[in-house]
């Protein structure tokens, strides 16, 4: 099973986390890391498990680097029913009404095109006490474990 980390960011926090996670996983896995801005939905591959990391901007919207991706998804409506992903969200509970709505939207967008989510959506809080990597590393380990038997099987 290959891994691909895809991140959507506005101020760079998700990018930094994506790079840290790539470094963390690289030893034991084959892993690629892309900004969602540089990733085409046509490139989703069934033998790859996608780890999405996405922040929230404006009033609960997708961050700038995820917006072109979302637009292409809406326009091309790819069939992602053979694709598996997990998602880690970043937000700030100061914005309580729209806390972590960016990753929520991204997960919904993936699901709307048939993609299969593995594990729960985790939400990092910029106003909270946890460092993003302290939540994200165990999350990645857990979802990779869960994905072992599923990803690629259907392909």
């Amino acid at each position, binding site marked *: 099973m290959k891994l691909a980390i895809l991140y959507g960011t*506005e101020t*760079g*926090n998700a990018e930094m986390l994506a790079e840290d996670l790539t470094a963390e996983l690289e030893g034991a896995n084959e892993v690629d890391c892309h900004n969602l801005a540089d990733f085409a939905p046509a490139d989703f591959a069934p033998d790859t498990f996608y780890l999405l990391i996405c922040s929230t901007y*404006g*009033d609960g919207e997708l961050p*700038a680097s995820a917006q072109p991706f979302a637009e292409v998804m809406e326009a091309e409506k790819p069939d992602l029913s053979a694709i598996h992903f997990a998602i880690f969200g970043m937000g700030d509970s*100061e*914005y309580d009404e729209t806390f972590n709505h960016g990753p929520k939207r991204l997960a919904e967008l993936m699901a709307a095109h048939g993609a299969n989510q593995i594990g729960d959506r985790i939400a990092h809080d*910029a106003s909270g006490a946890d460092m993003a990597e302290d939540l994200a590393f165990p999350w990645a380990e857990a979802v990779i474990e869960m994905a072992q038997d599923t990803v690629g099987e259907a392909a």
Partner: protein
Amino acid sequence: MSGQVAIVGAGPSGCYLAQALLKAQPDLIVDLIDRLPVPYGLVRYGVAADHQGTKGVTRQFARLFERQGARFFGNVAVGEAITLDALRAAYDVVVLAAGLSVDRPLGIPGSDLPGVIGAGRLTRSLYEHPDADALPDLGPRPLIIGNGNVAIDLLRLLAKTPEELEGSDLGAGPTKWLERQAIEEITITGRSPAAQAKFDAVMIKELAKLAGVTIRVIGAGASDDPAEQKKIDALLALDGIATGPRRVTFRFGLTPLGVEGADRAEAVHFTSPAGEETLPCSSVLTAIGFDPAADLPRDALVSLAADAEAGVLAPGLYAAGWFRRGPRGTIPDNRADAQALAGAILTDLAPDPSRQGAAVLAALPDVTDYTGWTRIDSAETATARPGRCRSKIATRDAMLSIARKDHGDAP
């Protein structure tokens, strides 16, 4: 040798630029020079004390120094301690990312009366900037002129109860000062109609959580434009909120004509489409934008610029962030800008190995480095009082002494 870059200003623009340069070319020498002994510019001294999440970007900036090889030279005012020309001679590239720190003057009769206070000046004092003036008395009825995010930040901070400041980094002195003001009423006025106000709707929505206020929104109007109407809706949702005694009033379409008062501001005289009007107040807080400081000749540089829009001022001299664009745009805008500018700089870069680089700074007194900042940072977080996440070191002397501590102990 791969080239030496000096970035003047270690605020978000300078830091994002260093990040983009070093990502593209890891062996580049990138030196961030700041007039303050500490880095991060307005992330530390402008972003509100109760918006700690927004300050989280400093974790990325710390990486620059800890892993990407950028160096910090603090307590060096370019234009004072060292001339811009000397810096340009020493480095292949100099980037001015010095921000804009001077409050734009109101420029109406009476605006130099005591009690008329710029938002930059006030926030620097509130957030314990080492060069700030003492906190001024606002009295019980401050009136805010301006309708940008900075104006809303000020309104929110002044309107909060002590409990609502839990978790912030508002200092002990400013916290006592705020209580002492015993603010009864805050009026906020904008020159434009609400539809054209510059603040973001989320900033307005946040005010709905205030725990001790009674809010009135007068004359918010309506708009056909959905983005404008979103702002208006956020405002209308505030109207009638009554969680406590502190009165907050929003007014729009008011152009100030003069500040009135015998020996301090006591009222502002406005004109509006509905006629003239005078609003009494105990102080006037202006949040109407920022101008360049006098230490760097920004206007001359920009007027002679090869391509000011792209940030190219002259061969080897560039501008980034607020210094380039003017006082508009948030932290993410600076990131996008910095990434574009990094590309242009690397395309133009023609390293000259005979340039002396940071050696030009070696003779300056009391220059701080990144290790010095980590000492200050640790001291500030270690001494945080209950209900606060940090206790800022407020004077330059104290910063310098902590930054220097155990210098010389190292092998």
